């Protein structure tokens, strides 16, 4: 058990260091931006206000809030303190709505969409890749190009294609939003039905893309494992083929789990862009709106929350890998 706790402790330490770095980056990068951001912010908020004293007052308020008159380290402490309190500032676009308020619901929509989609895509992709490696012949010849094509497609491309086909040409599914626009979110059967109806297209555009990438990876891993010495040895000891296939796929699957931890950031990035195609009320659409509306506090908050989501996801996956792969334990004991 000692190996495990050491592994977890190490992973957790990494998680923490990365989090700190992510926060620092999130703080520093925008402040490297040339020009006076507070001036820019004030300009946006005070657009249309003619009273010069009022504009001055807004400027001073923001300067104080961001502490731009203070040294950098003090500003950072201020930023941290606000962050811990859950205060991510106020949105410019939807002034004076707090950013944390906007983010909260968007993050839920994104997690609700992407977590199942990535998991389902991963499972199906691995299954197909394993089958391709095991069956080879015709199935392999068809699956490889299709997977390569799907895996190489940008998620938004798949999203638009599905949207036009199912939403516009065949009019089977709704084209935009997370639920019907004439509804108010509530836990009613009707609302849930609407959410599910709006769920399919974004869901499948993410699933299809992930299937492609995963199938290719799993196929290579499985072929590699099928050629491993232990397969031949097990066969010559009369172990049933079914069992051997079990060994192979378990072993091929483990690096795929690790691979998921490494690629989850990229996958979420692509999926966020796909969200914008459907105007899904998640983080993707939020960040698009924030960028086009030059809503700085909102952008910063979204990038932070995405980072944290990715961090937590990869941390969780690494913990799972640590538990199910004895090689990790052995490596720690060395």
């Amino acid at each position, binding site marked *: 058990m000692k190996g495990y706790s050491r592994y977890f402790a190490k992973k957790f330490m*990494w*998680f923490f*260091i*990365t989090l700190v*770095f*992510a926060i620092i*980056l*999130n703080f520093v*990068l*925008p402040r*490297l*931006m*040339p020009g006076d951001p507070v001036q820019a912010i004030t300009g946006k908020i005070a657009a249309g206000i003619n009273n010069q004293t009022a504009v001055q007052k807004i400027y001073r308020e923001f300067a104080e809030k961001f502490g731009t008159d203070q040294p950098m380290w003090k500003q950072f402490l201020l930023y941290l303190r606000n962050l811990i309190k859950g205060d991510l500032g106020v949105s410019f676009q939807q002034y004076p709505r707090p950013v944390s308020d906007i983010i909260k619901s968007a993050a839920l929509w994104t997690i609700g969409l992407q977590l199942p989609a990535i998991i389902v895509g991963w499972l199906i992709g691995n299954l197909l890749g394993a089958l391709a490696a095991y069956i*080879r012949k015709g199935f*392999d010849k068809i699956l*490889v*190009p299709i997977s*390569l*094509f799907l*895996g*190489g*497609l*940008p998620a*938004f*491309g798949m999203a*638009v*294609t599905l*949207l*036009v086909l199912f939403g*516009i040409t065949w009019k089977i599914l709704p*084209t935009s939003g997370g639920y019907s626009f004439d509804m108010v979110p509530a836990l009613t059967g009707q609302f849930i039905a609407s959410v599910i109806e709006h769920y399919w297209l974004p869901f499948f555009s993410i699933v299809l893309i992930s299937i492609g990438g995963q199938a*290719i990876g799993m196929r*290579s891993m499985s*072929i*590699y494992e099928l*050629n491993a010495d232990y397969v031949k040895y097990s066969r010559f000891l009369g172990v049933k083929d079914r069992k051997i296939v079990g060994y192979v796929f378990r072993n091929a699957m483990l690096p795929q789990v690790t691979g998921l931890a*490494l690629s989850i*950031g*990229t996958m*979420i*990035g*692509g999926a*966020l*862009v796909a969200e*914008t*195609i459907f105007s899904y009320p998640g983080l993707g659409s939020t*960040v*698009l709106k924030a*960028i*086009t509306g030059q809503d*700085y506090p909102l*952008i*910063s908050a979204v*990038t932070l929350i*995405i*980072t944290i989501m*990715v*961090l937590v996801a*990869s941390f969780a996956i690494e913990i799972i890998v640590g538990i199910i792969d004895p090689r990790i334990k052995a490596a720690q004991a060395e």
Partner: protein
Amino acid sequence: MKTTFRQIFRQANFVIGFSIITLILLVITIYPLFNPGSPLQMIGQGTFFKPGTYVNIYDSLDTSKVYTLRLDDAAANRIGKKLLPADRETMRAWLIAFGLPEESVQIEYTDDLLQLWWNSYDENVRPQGMTSAARKAAARVDAKLAGLYNMESLTITQPDETTGEPAQKMTVSETDYVNVSDIANVRVLPLGTDNFGRDTLKELLAATATSLKIGLLAGCIATLVGLALGLFAGYVGGIVDDIIMFFANLFTVIPGFVLLILISYSIGQESRGATTVAVVIGFTSWVWTTRSVRAQVLSLRNRDHVNLSKLSGHSLIRILVTDILPYIASYVVMALILQICSGILSEAQLSMLGLGPKTTEVPTLGLMMFWGMQYTAHLNGAWWAYFPVIVMIALISFSLNLMNTGLDQVFNPQLRS
């Protein structure tokens, strides 16, 4: 070396991928020679002109030669083209309400529909269950049909220079034709125009060129940085390795996408040229290459020939370049191809969020997609404004990936079938 190349070019996957990418490169180089001019020139006044041949009306009236052709189906064609689907629906509704069986009224066949209409329609009949609005609509369609059957010649007038009175200049009869080759201005827009009124095909090919350049630059930067760091981390080891891997681990978990958003936003719209975007993408995506190069170097660093080189007192750089690099070269090439591919995708995704290169300078595939979506081309049926872009991205990424699988099968014999 020669045999390796021969092996590579025998790989079906590689050859197919290579052919596709070569074809794309040929087209984007040759097309501008035949169709010069800026791809960003807004030729169309209005958004999303559909693909097709655009014939100048002024010039077609002004041609010296007019031909008379007596074609039997001319009138039917004319009506068929002008009778809109909505009009046909109105006619159908009236006919069915009038009492005709539903299956006998088919709106696709203009001739049959008109036959039914002439036989049945009477503006004084009030079919059961029809609102007066629907009846009025039917009457309007009937009037339109009457107008379409009016085969009088059109007269074109011009104000008289002295009196200002309209004077007849010419008449155009329904049997008059012009030969397209006689018309001074005919423009083929194979993919129509986009929301800005730009020639979409021309823009698409220019955008492909830019995106490939961005991908290449980003890929080269990522690969060079990744390779250098990976070599040093793997070969030197110790504290150098620890520091490099610290940052590599850090940037594995902090999504490159987030960094891209933050950096691109911080740079600001004005200073964001295609090159800047490519550089930013390159410097945020080296991590993956570093990790894999380092892993490869670790397996090489204790080989005999490396040790021999070390004992002979060769410099670090020389050992890295002559004793290690050749062994991972194939691997680096594959990594580069993947990085180019992901560079193109990254640009597209950034642009989709409004963080792409400055729009006034160059078209990129991502920007075309972005504007298509902003102007809801997909909801308006303007497929030509976004679908060719998706196909192009898919083709590039598919062919690059295919080439990579081909290379993989040559260099990793286990994967051969």
